[in-house]
C-alpha cells in the first residue's frame, strides 16, 4: 500500500451515465475519498456491486470489482473477504438490491459480522426500471406500479440491522460530502460489518424524497450528542421514523469479526502445487 494514494486513483476513466444530479455521484465520491484516506489503494481493494443504477459503481471506480447478480452482492463480498482477509472489501448496492431481493442476505451478513463495508444508495425508488416503488418507498408514494401508494410501511433497514446484531449502523446523505465521507471512513475502520445507508436522491423518478426534502429533514446524531455505543439510545433513534438521522447511530465497541472468531487469516489463494504433504492421513482416517 502506498501512502500517496489519492481518491482520484479510485476513479476509472469511464464516465458515469447516472442522470445529472443523481445522488450516486456524491455517494461514490465519498467512498473513494474514504478508501484513500484509510490507506487503501486500488490493487488491494475489492468492490462488489449489485444490480440497479447503483450497481454501475464498479465500472466508474478503479479497483478489483465484480458486478454480479441482483441482490447477491453481499454474499460475493463475504466470499472475497474470507478468502483473502488482507483485501479491503466494499459492497455497494441500492435499496432494491439490499432490502428487497437481497433482504435475506442482508440480515445474515449483518449477523455474520465479516469485516466488509456495505454502502446502500437508498433513493426509495426503482430508477433503472423507470420508477416503481421500492422497499423503502413511503406508504403513500404513487408510482407506475403503486397508483395509490404501496400501502405497506417502508422497510427500516437500520432497525433490521440492529435486530440482527449489527455492530456498526450508520446513515449519511450523498450531498453532505464531508459527513458522508467521515461516516464511510468510520465504517471502513470498524472491525466488522460496517453498514451505511446513504440517502442518495433520484432526481428523475422520485419527487418526494428529494435533496430539498432531506436538507430540511436531516438531523445529525452528532449534533444531538448521541452516543453510538449506547444501544438503547441507538434503538430510540433508529425506531424514530419521524425524523431522518445522519451519523453513526450504533457501534458495538466489542465487535468480534467472523474471521477472528473462526481464526481465518490466510490468503486462501496460496496453495501447494500438489496435494498437501500429509494428505494420505485423510485416507488413513477411513481405515
Amino acid at each position: 500500500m502506498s501512502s500517496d494514494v489519492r481518491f482520484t486513483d479510485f476513479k476509472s476513466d469511464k464516465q458515469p451515465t447516472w442522470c445529472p444530479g443523481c445522488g450516486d455521484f456524491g455517494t461514490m465520491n465519498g467512498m473513494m475519498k474514504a478508501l484513500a484516506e484509510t490507506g487503501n489503494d486500488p490493487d488491494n481493494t475489492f468492490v462488489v456491486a449489485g444490480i440497479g443504477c447503483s450497481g454501475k459503481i464498479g465500472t466508474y471506480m478503479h479497483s478489483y470489482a465484480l458486478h454480479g447478480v441482483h441482490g447477491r452482492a453481499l454474499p460475493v463480498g463475504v466470499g472475497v473477504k474470507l478468502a483473502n482477509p488482507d483485501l479491503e472489501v466494499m459492497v455497494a448496492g441500492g435499496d432494491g438490491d439490499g432490502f428487497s431481493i437481497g433482504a435475506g442476505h442482508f440480515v445474515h451478513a449483518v449477523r455474520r459480522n465479516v469485516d466488509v463495508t456495505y454502502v446502500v444508495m437508498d433513493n426509495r425508488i426503482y430508477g433503472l426500471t423507470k420508477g416503481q416503488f421500492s422497499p423503502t418507498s413511503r406508504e403513500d408514494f404513487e408510482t407506475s406500479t403503486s397508483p395509490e401508494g404501496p400501502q405497506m410501511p417502508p422497510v427500516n433497514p437500520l432497525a433490521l440491522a440492529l435486530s440482527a446484531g449489527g455492530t456498526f449502523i450508520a446513515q449519511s446523505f450523498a450531498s453532505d460530502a464531508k459527513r458522508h465521507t467521515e461516516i464511510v471512513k468510520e465504517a471502513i475502520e470498524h472491525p466488522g460489518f460496517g453498514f451505511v445507508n446513504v440517502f442518495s436522491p433520484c432526481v428523475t423518478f422520485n419527487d418526494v424524497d428529494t435533496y430539498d426534502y432531506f436538507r430540511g429533514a436531516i438531523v445529525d446524531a452528532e449534533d444531538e450528542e448521541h452516543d453510538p455505543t449506547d444501544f438503547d439510545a441507538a434503538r430510540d433513534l433508529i425506531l424514530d421514523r419521524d425524523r431522518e438521522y445522519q451519523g453513526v447511530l450504533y457501534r458495538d465497541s466489542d465487535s468480534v469479526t467472523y474471521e477472528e472468531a473462526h481464526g481465518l487469516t490466510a490468503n486462501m489463494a496460496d496453495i501447494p502445487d500438489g496435494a498437501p504433504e500429509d494428505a494420505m492421513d485423510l485416507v488413513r482416517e477411513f481405515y
Partner: protein
Amino acid sequence: MPEDLNWAIGGEAGDGIDSTGKIFAQALSRAGRHVFTSKDFASRIRGGYTAYKIRTSVDRVESVVDRLDILIALTERTIHENEDELHEGSVIIYDGERSTMQDVEVPEGTHAMTVPLKSLAEDAGGAIMRNVVALGAACEVANFPIENLDEALAKRFSDKGEAIVENNEKAARLGQEYVAENYDLDTDYDLETTDNDYVLLNGDEAIGMGAIAAGCRFYSGYPITPATDVMEYLTGRIEDYGGAVIQAEDELSAVNMALGAARAGARSMTATSGPGIDLMTETFGLVATTETPLVICDVMRSGPSTGMPTKQEQGDLNMVLYGGHGEIPRFVVAPTTVAECFWKTVEAFNLAEQYQTPVFLVSDLALAVTEQTFPPEAFDMDEIEIKRGNVVDEDEIDSWLDEQGRFQPHFPTADGVSPRAFPGTTDGAHMTTGLEHDSLGRRTEEEEVRVEQVDKRNRKVETAKENEDWDYREFGDPDADTLVVSWGSNEGAMREALELLDENGHDVRFISVPYLFPRPDLGDEVEAAEDVIVVECNATGQFADVLEHDVLERVDRINKYTGVRYKADELAEDVAAAITGDADDTQEVEAE
C-alpha cells in the same frame, strides 16, 4: 459374481441403525473383506423404516443385489419390507422378548433366531447396547471372528471412555454366546478374513477428500440431503489446511460466496442437490461470463420439487447441461464410482482453473450413501497435480496491460483462456460483470465485441476438447453386438450384471461415460453396435436423448448472437450461402 454375504440391520429411524451398520461394515473392512453398503431411509429424524445393508466378499463388490442372508430386525416391519430379498436359509435375528415382536412370523424357509437383545444388553451394562448384542449374534451366524468387531467398537465409542468400549465388547460376546449355545443352524455362511487393508468411505466423503487434496480452501453450502455429507466431511478438516466451510443462509448465497472466494483466488466449491441447484442456476451465467473458476457439485436425488429426498434419481442431467438463461459454456463431469468421486473432484478443480469456467460435478444419491472399500493406494495423493491455468503475477502482468496500462481479464486469446490476476496483484485491478463486457471487463453492447467475447468463451470449451481426455470407461465384450451405455453410479451394478448376462449367453459391450460435457464422441461405437441400450435412473432417458442427438446427421446452422434480430435481406443472404457454399461462413458474416 463374487461369493458374497448380504447382511442388513433395520428398524425405526432413531434406533441407531446407521451407526450399528457402520460398525459392522468397518469390522468387515478391517478384516480385509470388501464391503459395499446401501441404505433404506426416510427423510425424518425419528420413526419410519430405515435399514443399513452390507454386501461383503473377499473379492471386490460393485453393487447391491436383491438378496439378504442375515437380517437383524428391530421391528416387525423390517421383515415385511425385506420379504422379497429373504430366501430359503436366510437368518432373521430379532428380540422375541420385545412386546411388539412376540408374535412375529417369518417368511417360510427362513430361520427365525430370537435373541433377547435387550436383556443381554442390560447384562452387559445397558439396554442401549442391544444393537451390539445383535452384531455379536450375527458374527456367530456368519462365522465371523468376533475380535474383528472390537476395533470398530473402539473407533465408535473410544471418546466415551474405556468402560463404554469394554461394555460394548462384552455385549457383542453375550450375543455371540447366546446364539452358540441355543442354536445349531446348518447355514454355511463363512466370513473368512484376509490380510488386506482397506479404507471404507462414501461418495460424499470422497468428494470432500478430493476437494482438500485438490487445494480447495473455501466451501460454502446449505444443508440438503444427500449432499450434506460433503459439507460435514469438510467441516473440521479443511481448517487444518487454512480453509473454511461457511454455512450460508440459502443456496443463492452459498454459490455467490463461493464465487466471491474464487474471485479472490481461492479454489472454491459448493455442493447441493436438485432444489438447491434450482436456486443456484441464477448465478451459473455470472460464473461463466465473469470467467470465474468454480466447482458446483450436484448430488442428485429424486425430483421434481421436493420429490423423494432420500431416494435415488439421475434426473438433473438436462439441468446441469442446459440450466440457466442464455448460453453458458461449462463442463459437466459425473463420477461413476465412489473412488471416482475423489478423482473427478480433483479433475474438476483443475478444469475450472485452467479454463476459468464453471464445472458441474454431478454425483447421485446412490454414490453419496454407498460406503465402499478400497485399498488406500486407490487415493494415491502423489498422483495429484494442481493446474492453476493462466494466473499472472506482478512480474508477468505487464504483458497483459493495454496501451493505457489497464489489465485485461477477458483478453480474447487464441485458445480463449485469458490471464487471471488475483486481487492484491499490483497493477492488476480490474472489474468484471455479468453484463456483456469488453476485454477490460466493462459493459458493452457493441456487436463486434459481443461476438468476440461469446466466441472467446466458447473457444475455451473447444480448446479443452482438444487438450484434455474425455474418455469413457469400457467393460464387457468389445466386439459384442449389444452396446449398453450408462452414466453415474449405475456402472457398478452394470459391471456385475455383465457377468450374469454372460452366464445367460448375452454378450454385451458396456460403456460408462464420466464426461457429460464435453463428452466422448460415441458415433463409431453406436454405429458398430446392432442394439444400443442406454441405462439411467430417470423416467425419460435424458442421456439417451443426448446420445441420439450426438449421432444425428448434422444440420446446417445459421446463428446470430450480436443482440440484433434477423433482418429479411440478411437472412436470405445467409441461407443462400448455406445452400451454395460452406455453411461455416455464415458465422463470419455475423461477426463482421
